[in-house]
């Protein structure tokens, strides 16, 4: 392990474990251990903020270290690395990516120091803004000047470190294997269980994606924690009146406030989420996958008194479990055929054990299926880190049937479907809005639901073309369905929820059409702008005294300008609005990248044209409903005077987070596919995305990355047009009120009803699964009572009836199976009792009869 690796590990682990410590402290707040009056103390909140804030600082340092270290070496290393598989891919990729960069090697060494500083400084400034908020604009404007150079340079430095790192890793990782994960650091935390050659452990895996995710999650989480201090402040009481929960006599529920508990749960969530990102093996991902699920359960159901909240929490968890069932199947397949869960190769005392990512090797040899190496039977070969085919104890090649590799991929993706609320498991997310708004912002828009996308990206090397196509279609369906529902939703949070689902669909689609970087870029940008919008909506709700229905709002721009402006930034970002000077809103870059990937894909595979059409159309729909939201809420005249009169701007502790997040939402993707963020993300992109996959038979063709870049302009234009139409429509309908909406609603009643009922998914699932499950359950219980207990009991009785025996044994003591034997033996015994007539003469007869019978038996069976 290199010093860098150790440093990164320690930083990220600190960031990861601090919230856990925070959780432990906070959960005990209620006992008054730390405060005399725990119900009134904000101590827990500050503790949580402190933990996650420190976590953010650690993550930031890690980011800087990563950039710094990877940028701190000479470029000749890159040339060396060209010869090595993964390395060369990256290098080539960079060449292809930046026409300007070609042949500029010589300059790089000169640029070295300055570039490094800038890359680091740029990021630092970037993040520092978040904390201070004051110089936001200045820095943002200042950046573009050095844009080109810094990007190129930084990127080259990043690339160059790959080989360098590989040398340094040699302590724990064979240099050869490390070469395949040049900028990735991996190692073991501790072993959970060891079974012969099989080891299940907790590991960490740090690469650019991990670090970016850490920075993103901790930053957003810090902001949301701050926001929540304000938002949840009405819980700081001994007698909280819950206006949404009623007792049977119609009164509101009174209960002590639970301020501290909310922050404890938030901290636990942060711990789980960061653990998920840091996880070094797929099993560990599953562990934290479940943990974020349970945190989501706890947070959705925070208002435990509300039936709707606990229902929503259950629904969320159980639907996630459905997805996890698939995940589990994937895990089983992987475990059985690969014998390891590790992403990266693990080096134990000189013995390199291959990780999953090096076990499926991609080559372009003739006999291969897709771009996976297969043997003559079509089974996928499992290879060592060195690329040699592994053999089992009997000397046979280790293989996994291709179909099972697909199953594994689909299984893992099944987990992602549940977690990221993709079709057909999307229905839990809107219900999850029952949780307090900060929860919606953190858990259900920015982080947890994006975990599915994250995992899909993380696990990309294991997905075959079929799986990717499935992912793309799932994403496509989801993004369209959710967007259409968002059109008619009136609850401000529900609109955002459907928007979240739709945007997650975008990401999935992006990943599915081989736009790996596009999908993940959208993950980051979406996290920023969606959390911003949720916080804004939270601010609105708080300002309007827990009114969530947009039809009762309107004209709030005057009352709460900061919120309105921040919201507008979010809306512009999600709509994908371009701006002058390259200051395009982040959504413009990320959505553009996705649409471009989709376009490239559908050009290669004309049969899958829908995969381009859906995101394109939906871009318009997105723009429409988001502007609808903004206009309905902030524009025009107040619709409900009462609400309007009492509305007020939120306190500073809630506004500051908005102001911190807004610039990120706007500019985090600055530079698009040449920007810092994008480049950093792609640093550790899976090797095979570079070249695409040539179809075998009727299979799909996956485009090369260059082809996607080529589509950027065209795609951007298409998307912009679509979004523009959406905006115009929204402005016409809601901004200028050109049409009577009620009329329209009436005229389009059927369609409206269909959408308002969320395409009837809930009803469908209720009929398909919930009721049958309860039926089966009731059946099992019935079987227990009936088959095992009563039926046999009945048989016992039948026996009695057949025998015409009129003294049915009627003991009421026992029933069931005991009763079977008891009454059967009892009945039989009773029948035997009849022989005991009590008459001595008959007894004597019985002696005779007995002797005669014995006599008969004797001489009928006599051996002689």
């Amino acid at each position, binding site marked *: 392990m290199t010093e860098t690796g150790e440093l990164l590990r320690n930083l990220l682990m600190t960031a990861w474990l601090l919230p856990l410590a925070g959780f432990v402290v906070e959960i005990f707040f209620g006992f008054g251990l730390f405060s005399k009056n725990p119900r009134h103390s904000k101590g827990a909140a500050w503790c949580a903020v402190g933990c996650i804030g420190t976590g953010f600082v650690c993550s930031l340092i890690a980011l800087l270290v990563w950039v710094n270290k990877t940028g701190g070496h000479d470029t000749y290393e890159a040339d060396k690395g060209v010869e090595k598989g993964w390395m060369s891919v990256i290098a080539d990729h960079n060449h292809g990516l930046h026409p300007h960069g070609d042949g500029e090697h010589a300059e790089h060494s000169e640029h070295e120091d300055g570039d490094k500083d800038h890359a680091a400084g740029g990021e630092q400034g970037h993040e520092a803004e978040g904390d201070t908020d004051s110089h936001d604009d200045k820095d943002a404007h200042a950046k573009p000047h050095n844009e080109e150079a810094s990007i190129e340079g930084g990127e080259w430095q990043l690339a160059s470190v790959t080989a360098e790192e590989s040398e340094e890793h040699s302590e724990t990782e064979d240099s050869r294997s490390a070469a395949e994960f040049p900028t990735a650091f991996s190692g073991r935390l501790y072993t959970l269980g060891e079974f012969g050659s099989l080891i299940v452990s907790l590991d960490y895996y740090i690469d650019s994606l991990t670090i970016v995710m850490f920075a993103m999650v901790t930053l957003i989480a810090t902001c949301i924690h701050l926001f929540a201090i304000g938002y949840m402040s009405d819980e700081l009481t001994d007698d909280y009146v819950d206006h949404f929960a009623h007792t049977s006599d119609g009164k509101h529920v009174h209960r002590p406030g639970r301020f501290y508990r909310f922050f404890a749960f938030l901290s636990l969530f942060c711990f789980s989420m960061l653990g998920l990102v840091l996880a070094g093996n797929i099993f560990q991902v599953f562990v934290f996958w479940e943990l974020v699920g349970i945190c989501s359960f706890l947070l959705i159901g925070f208002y435990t008194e509300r039936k709707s909240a606990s229902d929503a929490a259950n629904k969320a968890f159980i639907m996630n479990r459905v997805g996890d069932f698939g995940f589990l199947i994937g895990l089983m397949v992987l475990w059985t055929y690969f014998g390891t869960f590790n992403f990266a190769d693990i080096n134990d005392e000189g013995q390199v054990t291959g990780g999953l990512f090096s076990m499926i090797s991609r080559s372009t040899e003739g006999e291969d299926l897709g771009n996976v190496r297969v043997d003559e039977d079509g089974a996928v070969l499992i290879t060592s880190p060195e690329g040699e085919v592994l053999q089992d104890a009997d000397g046979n090649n280790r293989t996994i049937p291709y179909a099972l590799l697909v199953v594994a991929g689909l299984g893992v993706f099944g987990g992602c479907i549940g977690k990221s609320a993709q079709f057909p498991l999307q229905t839990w997310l809107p219900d999850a809005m029952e949780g307090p708004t900060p929860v919606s912002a953190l858990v259900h828009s920015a982080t947890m639901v994006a975990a599915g996308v994250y995992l899909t990206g993380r696990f990309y090397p294991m997905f075959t073309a079929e799986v990717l196509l499935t992912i793309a279609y799932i994403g496509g369906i989801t993004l369209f369905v959710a967007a259409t529902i968002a059109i008619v939703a009136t609850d401000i949070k529900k609109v955002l929820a459907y928007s979240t689902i739709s945007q997650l669909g975008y990401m999935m689609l992006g990943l599915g059409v081989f736009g790996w970087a596009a999908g993940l870029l959208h993950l980051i940008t979406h996290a920023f702008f969606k959390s911003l919008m949720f916080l804004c909506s939270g601010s609105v709700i708080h300002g309007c005294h827990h009114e969530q229905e947009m039809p009762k709002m309107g004209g709030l721009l005057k009352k709460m300008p900061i919120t309105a402006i921040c919201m507008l930034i979010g809306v512009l970002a999600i709509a994908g609005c371009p701006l002058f000077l390259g200051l395009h809103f982040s959504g413009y870059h990320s959505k553009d990248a996705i649409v471009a990937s989709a376009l490239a894909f559908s050009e290669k595979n004309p049969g899958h044209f829908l995969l381009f059409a859906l995101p394109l159309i939906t871009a318009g729909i997105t723009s429409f409903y988001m502007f609808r939201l903004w206009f309905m809420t902030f524009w025009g005249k107040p619709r409900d005077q009462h609400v309007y009169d009492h509305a007020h701007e939120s306190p500073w502790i809630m506004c500051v987070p908005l102001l911190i997040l807004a610039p990120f939402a706007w500019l985090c993707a600055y530079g698009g596919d040449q920007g810092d963020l994008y480049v950093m993300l792609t640093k550790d992109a899976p090797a095979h995305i570079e070249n695409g996959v040539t179809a075998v038979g009727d299979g799909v063709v996956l485009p090369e990355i260059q082809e996607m870049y080529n589509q950027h302009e065209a795609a951007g234009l298409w998307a912009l047009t679509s979004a523009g139409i959406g905006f115009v429509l929204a402005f016409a309908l809601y901004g200028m009120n050109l049409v009577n909406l009620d009329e329209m609603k009436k005229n389009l009643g059927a369609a409206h009803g269909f959408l308002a009922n969320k395409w009837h998914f809930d009803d469908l699932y209720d009929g398909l699964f919930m009721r049958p499950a309860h039926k089966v359950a009731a059946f099992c219980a019935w079987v227990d009572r009936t088959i095992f207990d009563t039926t046999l009991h009945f048989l016992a009785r039948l026996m009695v009836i057949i025998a015409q025996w009129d003294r049915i*044994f009627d003991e009421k003591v026992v029933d069931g199976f005991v009763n079977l*034997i*008891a009454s059967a*033996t*009892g009945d*039989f*015994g*009773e029948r*035997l*009792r009849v*022989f*005991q007539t*009590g008459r*001595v003469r008959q*007894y*004597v007869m*019985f*002696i005779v*009869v*007995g*002797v005669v*019978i*014995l*006599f008969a*038996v*004797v*001489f009928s*069976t*006599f*051996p*002689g």
Partner: protein
Amino acid sequence: MSIDQLLNTTGRDLSVYFNAELVLSATVVLLLLFRLFSIDRFVPGSFVALVGALVAGGFSVQQVINIEDGTSVVFFAGMLKHDLFTVYFRIFLCLFLILTIALTVLTGIPDSEDSPDFYTLLLGSTIGMMMMASANHLLMLFLGVEMASVPSYVMVGFLKGRKESSEAALKYVVYGAGAAGVMLYGISLIMGVLGTGDMAILGSQLSALGGGLGSPGVMTVALGALLVLAGLAFKLSLVPFHFWAPDAFEGAPAEVAGFLSVASKAGAFALLVRFLLSLTGAETAELMTWFGLGLGLIGILTATYGNLTAYGQTNVKRLFAYSTIAHAGYMVMAVSAFVVLQNSDTATADDVSNSLSSLLFYLAAYLFMNLGAFAVVAMVRNHTFREDLTSLKGVGTQGNWVGICMAICVASLIGIPGTGGFFGKLVVFASVYKAAEVSSFMYVVLAFAGANTVFSLFYYVKILKAMYLEEREPGIQPVQVPTAERLYLALLGVMVIITGILPNQLAVIAKDAGQSILAGIGG
């Protein structure tokens, strides 16, 4: 053999081999004399009987010490046989006699008026049983059975004023007489065909008959043996000759029922073994194996019948009567296994003696647990004047010794480890399993033995349930027994547990006893 010789040997026989019986007989005479001279007003009959039983027991124990390993002596001109097997049963019977007398003293069942009569009968019956255990001639077989039976008829009817008692006695005597007649007829056939009643040579005579199994001679002997077995089955209360048992037990006082259920069974089993061994000769393996399997079938029927019929009983004594029948079934399975093994070529001598010792062990364990159960019934009866299950309700929860003793005994009767009943069952099952290697029919026997253990649970648990899980019905007297009775119960309970967790010594003795009788017939 001259008269002198005869007198000499008889004297020796009386003093050495027959001293226990002699003491008991003397005690009987003494009891009668005391009554004649009204001494019994000063010296209670129970005391005299107890002393007599103790002395007899002492002599029996002394016989163990004196006897040489593996030897057997025939005495009284070949009528009786003295070997470790005999001694084992003597001690067993003496011990049981002592315990029974103690119990009757504690519960006071014969009043002072009747007590000499009662103990006379008790002792007489015991002498008969001892003779059964040592019989070496078909005459002694018959005499022993009758001597054990006739006094017990009277004891069953000892509660003179009770209708049930007299009815039970009448049934018992009629049934017993009928069974005796049948047995006697069988004996006559055997003796007629084989020309002798000496059990030592019956087997060789039978072998000498020749002509195979189908020959009339062998058939007649088989029929005779069957009739004898029917007579013994009456004593053992085996199905289908068990009818007397429930009625007699219900009508008799619990003390007598306890005595009958254990002692007369012990004697009869000893006799059964001796009789079956006597028929074993060089050429009789096939016939005997067949008898053995037949006994196995009887065992199945008996155990199953006993357990199933017990379920519906409400009178505790009657319930235990059926329980006794069931346990006789288990024990007959052991005999069956013994016979099968003894007549097989493959079984080792060790297996054979083990199977016999399993019977002996079971009897010993059964002694304590069954007597304990009847003792509890007797003591509860003294308080409640009832003997139905209802009278037991809540007795256990009163927290006294009666309940604990009963629980231990019932556990042992079910066969819970840690009690003698379990180990007994284990060794019986083991013999049956071993026999199953010879004849697969024994697997069926084993299966039924196992199933019966489960069947038996139901009615035994009814007792536990009544004692512990149910509330005492209002108006029924609480049961608080005095210290002496507590100690008595504790003694039995402890013995049940000792035979369960430290059974080694007993098992060794039982094995020696088993080996001695086998050695006696020369393999």
